[in-house]
C-alpha cells in the first residue's frame, strides 16, 4: 500500500463458491485507500465481477481459514467498508457508500424516464424532493446530459445509457465506485467522455476492465486476478509492462507502453 491512509475498503481472506459448488474466489485480500483508484484485470472468468459483487453485499463470501490447522472459526466477514462489516444490518449505509456500475446499462436503467432513474437512488436514501431534483440535474450535467430528464431509455444511444447509469450512481454521492467494464461496447468518443468523467470523480474506485489502456490511464495501482486468486498487486505501470506476467494471465502489455506512448507523449499530431 503506497499512499493510503485510512482504507475505505478492506478485503481479507475472501473466498466464494457458487451455489453450484464451483470455486470463484480463493483467499483474496487487499486494501483500497481513500480516493485511491485501483484497476482489476484478468482473463474472462477470473472472478472480477464476482469480487465486485462482494463490495456492497450482493454476494457474501466467507472468510477463509488462515493458513495452518483450522482451530476456531474466524469471524465470518471478509469485507469491510469504512470499518463496517458487510452484513445485512449495514447494507443501507454500505450501499450509499459503495456505488455500483453494472456492465449492461439495460439492467440498471429500469425507470420510465431518465429523470426518474437518476432520482431512484437519492429517493431511496430518503432525501427531500428538492434535494433530489437538484442532485438529478447536477449529476446529469456532470455526465454531459443536461436536460435529459424527460427522455425515455429506449430512445438513448448505448453510450448515453451508460452515462445515465453512471449519473444514477453518482447521484448517491458514493465514496467508493465499483465499476464493471465501464468502457465495454463504447465508441472512442463515448469512452473518452467516460474516462474524463471518472477522472474528475473524487470517489475511490475499483475498476474491473479488459481495457488496459483505460486502466493505465485511470489507475495508479492494479490487481491481477486469475482463477479466483490475486496473482499480483502493485503499481499499474510496473505490472502492465511485465510481459511475462501479462501473458501468463491472458493479458498483454498495452500498446502505449510497447511503443513508449506515455500519457503526455502524444502520437504525432498537427500543431
Amino acid at each position, binding site marked *: 500500500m503506497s499512499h493510503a491512509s485510512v482504507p475505505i475498503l478492506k478485503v481479507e481472506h475472501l473466498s466464494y463458491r457458487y451455489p453450484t459448488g464451483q470455486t470463484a474466489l480463493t483467499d483474496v485480500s487487499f486494501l483500497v485507500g481513500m480516493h485511491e483508484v485501483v484497476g482489476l484485470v484478468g482473463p474472462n472468468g477470473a472472478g472480477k465481477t464476482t469480487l465486485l459483487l462482494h463490495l456492497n453485499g450482493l454476494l457474501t463470501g466467507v472468510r477463509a481459514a488462515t493458513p495452518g490447522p483450522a482451530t476456531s472459526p474466524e469471524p465470518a466477514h471478509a469485507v469491510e467498508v469504512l470499518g463496517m462489516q458487510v452484513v445485512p444490518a449495514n447494507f*443501507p449505509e454500505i*450501499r450509499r457508500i459503495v456505488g455500483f456500475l453494472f456492465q449492461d446499462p439495460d*439492467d440498471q436503467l*429500469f425507470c420510465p424516464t431518465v429523470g426518474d432513474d437518476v432520482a431512484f437512488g437519492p429517493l*431511496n436514501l430518503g432525501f427531500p424532493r428538492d434535494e433530489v*431534483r437538484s442532485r438529478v440535474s447536477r449529476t446529469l450535467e456532470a455526465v454531459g446530459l443536461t436536460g435529459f430528464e424527460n427522455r425515455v431509455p429506449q430512445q438513448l444511444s448505448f453510450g448515453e445509457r451508460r452515462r445515465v447509469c453512471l449519473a444514477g450512481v453518482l447521484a448517491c454521492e458514493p465514496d467508493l465506485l465499483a465499476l464493471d467494464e465501464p468502457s465495454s461496447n463504447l465508441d472512442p468518443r463515448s469512452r473518452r467522455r467516460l474516462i474524463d468523467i471518472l477522472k474528475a470523480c473524487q470517489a475511490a474506485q475499483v475498476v474491473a476492465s479488459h481495457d488496459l489502456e483505460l486502466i493505465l490511464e485511470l489507475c495508479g495501482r492494479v490487481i491481477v486476478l486469475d482463477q479466483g486468486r490475486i496473482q499480483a498487486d502493485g503499481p499499474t505501470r510496473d505490472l502492465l509492462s511485465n510481459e511475462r506476467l501479462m501473458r501468463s494471465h491472458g493479458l498483454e502489455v498495452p500498446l502505449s507502453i510497447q511503443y513508449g506512448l506515455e500519457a503526455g507523449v502524444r502520437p504525432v499530431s498537427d500543431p
Partner: protein
Amino acid sequence: MAVDFLDRYSRGSTWCHRWPARLKIVLTLAVIVAVVLLPISLWPIHGCLACLIFAAHAVADIPLSYLLRRVALLLPVVLLMALCVPLSRGFSGGWELASALVARALLTFLAALWLVNTTPFDRLLAAFRQLGMPRSFVVLLAFTYRYLFVVFDELARMRTAQRARTFGRRSPWAVWNSTVQLVAMLLIRSLNRSERVHQAMLSRGWQGEFRTID
C-alpha cells in the same frame, strides 16, 4: 413486427396529443364503461360511440391501416370466445349475445388503443399515479413497458443470429423446433436479467418501497 407497434403514434403533436393525460384517461374509461354497461338493445348508442372512437383516431392522425392490423391480432381470440355462446346452445340462438361480445371487445380495445397512441407511456403512468392508482400497479406497468423493449431487442438479435446460421429451406418441424428453442432461451435470459435488475435496484438502496419524485 417492431416493438413500437404498441404505441407507434404516442409522440405525435396533434390536438389530441396535447390534451392533459388525466382527461384522456377519464374520457377513455367513460367510453369503455359505457360500451360495456349499456344493453346491446340500445345499439344506436353503441354506433355513436363507435363513430366517436373512430373520429378520435382520425383527429389524432392514427392511420386506419394501423388500427386494422392491431384489430386483426385481437380478432381471432375474440371470435373464438364469442363462438362459444351459440356453441353452448347448439347453434339455436345466442348470436345476438355473440355479436354484442365482439362489438364490445373491439370498441373497448380501440378506445384503449387511442389512449396509448395519444399519450407517451411515461406521462400515462404519471397520470395514473395522480389519479390514485395503487403504486405497485403503476410500477408493475412501468417495468413491463421498459423491459418489453429490451426483451424484444434481444429476441430480434437472437433471430438474426439464428437466420445467419440457417441455410436453404427447412421443414416445418425444424422451424417449430428452433422456435421452441428460441422461446426457451429468451425465458432463461429474461430470468437472468431480472436477477441482475434486482441487484442493480439493491445497489441503489432499494428497500422494497418505490418512491417517486412527484
